[in-house]
């Protein structure tokens, strides 16, 4: 094994301020660090998942100023002054009967069995919330089209579409 004492990490760092889930974080990052890596590795917000790192799977979907974005395709240094919301910040907060209160779409995912391994799920929820909010959930076909950036290899699409539809219809979540 060719080994060395590593040279100090001299990469140029930049001090930035990020606003994530209504909290402000100050940190030093390299300009090349993606928002996804910064969320996961520095802020310990590991809910956003890495499925491809290339904008091809949707597992890393977050909201930036209310719009969906693939966190793996954004540079953290460019997100200053923006409101970032991740899966950890989507629920209203607080507890009911000792259980964390969920966003209606999270609850609908349980009811309609919209997940299996759970790895794509945070991304699906973030996209689903945006699809509902932006009025693209008028029919199953429309939901499928607008959710097509989020791969679910477990193939839970039927449940995902049903969950989004049910929230759109205002189903009370039982």
């Amino acid at each position: 094994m060719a080994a060395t004492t590593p040279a100090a990490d001299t990469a140029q760092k930049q001090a930035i301020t990020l606003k994530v889930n209504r909290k402000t974080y100050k940190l030093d990052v390299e300009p090349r660090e993606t928002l996804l890596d910064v969320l996961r590795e520095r802020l310990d917000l590991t809910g956003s998942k890495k499925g491809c790192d290339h904008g091809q799977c949707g597992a890393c979907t977050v909201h930036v100023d209310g719009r969906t974005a693939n966190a793996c395709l954004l540079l953290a240094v460019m997100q200053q002054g923006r409101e970032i919301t991740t899966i950890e910040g989507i629920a209203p907060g607080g507890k009911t009967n000792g259980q964390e209160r969920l966003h209606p779409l999270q609850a609908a995912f349980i009811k309609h069995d919209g997940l299996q391994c759970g790895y794509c799920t945070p991304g699906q929820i973030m996209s689903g919330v945006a699809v509902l909010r932006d009025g693209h959930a008028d029919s199953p076909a429309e939901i499928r089209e607008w959710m097509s950036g989020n791969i679910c290899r477990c193939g839970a699409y039927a449940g995902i579409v049903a969950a989004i539809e049910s929230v759109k219809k205002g189903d009370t979540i039982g």
Partner: protein
Amino acid sequence: MTQVCKTSKAIGGMGHSMKRKEDGRFLQGKGNYVDDIKLDGMLYMDIVRSPYAYAKIKKIDSEAALKVPGVLAVITGRDLEQYNLHWMPTLMSDTQMVLPTDTVMYQAQEVAAIIATSRYAARDGREAVRVEYEVMKPVIDPFKALDPSAPVLRTDKPGKTDNHIWHWEVGDKARTEAVFASADVVVKEQMHIPRIHVASIETCGCVADYSKVNNHLTMYMTTQAPHAIRTVIALVAGHVGLTEEKVRVISPDIGGGFGGKVPVYPGYVIAIAASFLIGKPVKWIEDRSENLQADSFARDYHITAEMAGTKDGKILATRFKVLADHGYTDASANPSKFPTGMFSIATGSYDYGTTFMEADAIYTNKPPGGVAYRCSFRVTEAVHAIERMTDRYALEIGKDPAQLRFDNFIPKEAFPWHSPTGWIYDSGDYEAGLRKAMDAIDYEGLRKEQTEKRAKGELMGIGISTFTEVVGAGPSKDFDILGIKMFDSAEIRVHPTGKAIARFGTKSQGQGHETTYAQIIAEELGIPAENIQIEEGDTDTAPYGLGTYASRSTPTAGAAAAVAARKLRDKARKIAAYLLEVSEDDLEWEPGKFFVKGAPEKSKTIQELVFAAYTNHPQGMEAGFEATHYYDPPNLTFPSGAYICVVDIDKETGEIKVRRFVAIDDCGNIINPMIVQGQVHGGLTQGIAPAMYESLIYDDDGNILNGTLMDYLVPTAVESPNWETGHTITPSPHHPIGAKGVGESPTVGAPPAIANAIVDALSPYGITHLDIPITPFKVWKALKEKGAI
């Protein structure tokens, strides 16, 4: 037919669509997958990979890499060679390089590893390593691999003079040949079941954490079979001190496995070696392209399929000849005795006299293939062959393919049925399944519509697949992996307050074990499923088991749970007799309590009995309320299904629309209908994938042409049709709860239904077969060649 619930909803035993216990954490982003693990002082590993499919390594220059800030070490095959860790066994007892010392055998093969203080630094280091290669002409086309002019690839094997790995055959050759020679009708097709990729949305990875102080390795790893992996690690690295008691494998949440997370890939071993040498935790996570290009490949069978029959539609014999492209090593995940897995189930759901099957496996310059991608060891290839040929035969004699199936099904009275290749099908009712599917889809109506459309020149097709699966490996007399018998295990501990924890040798990757296992125990013990905690994946705490793949969890570990729970129920009966002062024979069980026959007011709940096991147990009885069972299945289980697919094809563009897809599955008794439906949806989606979209393409130089998710087409919500599902229930007679397993049936059964539908649509133009994936271009080209457009 629906599953009858014997327990109340509060208990939540079998048949209840209980909501999944695991959902809460996943939905809140609180799942704990390998890449979410962060340990103090953790280092990161990246891997230099070969750009060539076949080349000699002349030099690896790590000098520049070692100057990259944050880079700590570069590890090569020569380094591992010093510890005799540069080669490792595959699951099929072939050998595989961990890192090469001389030659690379496929594009994207691991060449060297970089260890650094951050993920980014490791990647920088990877870019800085300079490797000089002497490029050689690779063997890519499996049909040319046995040419005398082809280079012998495995020169590491003394005396090897060609690229042949093994020959396998089963059945009655002479009798089959005689039947073929005299049969009125013989049909034949050459088909390829292409190389595909599991593409689980989480790639493979690990954190190897070796402690020099304790000489102990904790391996956090994306593995479907943690116990078997611990044994393999001990076999590979025992000689450097990592004997089995010094190794703990933890498989945390897994983001989809589908068979791709059964084998041991080089990255895992290099990470262990790095942690062992440096004494710090080392994390290795593949990126998506590495995953798609280097591991988790399945299928790649070239099959010459033949069927012989009478003029009026009685199947008489089948013959299958397989050329199996294994890549550069046989790393299939098959039980030892079965080099082609369960391919010999290819006689299908039909009752006929004789078959002959043979296979030859060969080496090529491709990555190791043969993982059992959502399939019980090559069942998918077998089912595709028989179901395609059944339709092909029906087309040849002009008979309706549904009727032809009815005329050939193994009748339900004939079970247990002895297949010509030696399987004993435990149970089935194929006719009921197909009838139900035909009614659900209005088969007669569709055929009428098709006739009308054909008259107008429009392309509409109806495809059927009535398949038999063979899962739940397996009985110890026949089934082992690396010598370890394929039992599985459950350990149940009920605490004094009546709440329980149960641990298993399997490992869920999305199947919902935390819910279904709890339901099995609830069914048997009457303790509410929500009070039963399920734990898997930690070799220090769970009993030994062979893991989750090949739809074996319910048939093996699920059975173990039921048997262990029954042991506890027997103990509860003894305690109840003692407390109620009656004989055991005077007691009757209803879910959740024992009561005295004829005096139901005299009863004890299971919770009271468990409490007594700790506080007031009969003299001479062992205290506590725990049981373990290692279940060795007496036979495999044989789920079946009847699928019908309807497609409309645009003649001008070849575009295929799946209009309807009805799937009637028979997986025996159902533990959780909601979870079964989810499994079926998922399996169907992974069935349409290879039928219409997915296959890995290599050029003549062995370059993979679609190694990203941009080019490898995984179905999204748009490509997935609206699946219509239903059931027939034929319980397995030998399984303690009559269940059979379901996760893979749809992946196995769907591709031929889709292919049959497409070929049915095109058959008026003389098209008899198309290889999957059937793309619009393939359809358009075939129509063009036949002069249809």
